[in-house]
């Protein structure tokens, strides 16, 4: 892969930070250190995308961070996992201010709490709403799901 050099430098510099170094999956506690290294030493000054994946079968939520370097070069993605029952990760707003709105989005729709976020509120749904609709076990009982109701 074209981002191999950056990924290799990253895993070599912080050998203890990884839960799964092959897919750049960091321990939650080491996320700020990884982010600082990625930004300051590897030059990835911009966080373009922060997404979450609900891995229902493993009971974990994976948050994926996509970063690019304004100087050019391949983008990089690293990730961290957190149990869905108590989803909690350190916030990276201090590192990339652009993470603020995106962490609020992940909090709103997936229910991941970002420790250290300056203003963790819902962003799309209204404040009174209960639940996190992008989680895969969020009740979905629309027409599509009714069709198979007699089976199983």
């Amino acid at each position: 892969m074209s981002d191999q050099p950056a990924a290799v430098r990253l895993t070599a510099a912080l050998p203890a930070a990884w839960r799964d170094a092959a897919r750049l999956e960091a321990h939650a506690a080491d996320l700020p250190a990884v982010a600082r290294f990625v930004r300051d030493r590897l030059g990835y000054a911009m966080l373009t995308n922060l997404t979450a994946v609900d891995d229902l079968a493993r009971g974990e939520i994976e948050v994926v961070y996509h970063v690019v370097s304004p100087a050019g070069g391949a983008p990089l993605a690293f990730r961290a996992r957190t149990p869905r029952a108590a989803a909690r990760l350190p916030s990276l707003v201090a590192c990339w201010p652009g993470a603020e709105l995106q962490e609020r989005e992940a909090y709103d729709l997936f229910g991941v709490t970002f420790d250290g976020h300056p203003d963790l509120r819902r962003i799309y749904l209204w404040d009174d709403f209960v639940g996190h609709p992008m989680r895969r076990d969020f009740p979905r009982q629309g027409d599509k799901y009714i069709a198979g109701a007699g089976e199983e």
Partner: protein
Amino acid sequence: MATEAQLAAERHGVFLTTVTRLYNWGRRSSVYPLSFGLACCAIEMMATGMARVDLARFGAEMFRASPRQADLMIVAGTVTKKMAPQVVRLYNQMPEPRYVISMGACATSGGPFRDGYNVLRGIDLLIPVDVYVPGCPPRPEALLHGLMTLQAQIDAQRLDAVRWYSDREARDHPVPSLGRHGLELDGQTIDPVGGLPLLSPLTSPHAEEQRSGQLEHPQEIRLFPIMDDTVARETPWRARGVAREIAADDLKRGGAHE
């Protein structure tokens, strides 16, 4: 006989008609829409106003910036739950007689987003609709046909029968609020986030704006498992609201993790 007298009068430059027809002719020829669009359908609505299909031929090209000056609300696009209170408020601000065209699948039923968490499942849950235009998006010709259908409906109205010239007062439609589980009217959840509408749609003004009383899938109406334990008695995955394909093959990664 009456026709002959009419023709004779017309030869002398006197034109006879009924008050109702004159009124309806005036109203049908100047149906000013409210200029607001909500999603992709609005692009087709704009195309309808442009030169090629030219809404102006039907007297409806005057998109008004204020609901006080508008006769017609074209609900063009996806009405999100957060937008729904504003749409009802705009409708309440329009002077009578007022008409609503529900343009596209989204405005009519929630469309492709019906099973999503964020979209109102049909604007007729909140305000009465005169003409539904199907499509995703409907072509400008379809919207034009919707307008012509509306004009035919206006032509058929009788001044002594319509509500807005009688002494029965117009009522404001209640504005929904955003509650814990979805849209609420008077503290009752009517369109939950995840689920089905719990309210029957309104009929058009010609039918006196009643609720039709017909829920969709009444036997299947359920709220969240935390609110309704009949769901919890089913299989565990279903109890958690997970579709089978999701439980069996997480994210189509090529194998279940279980």
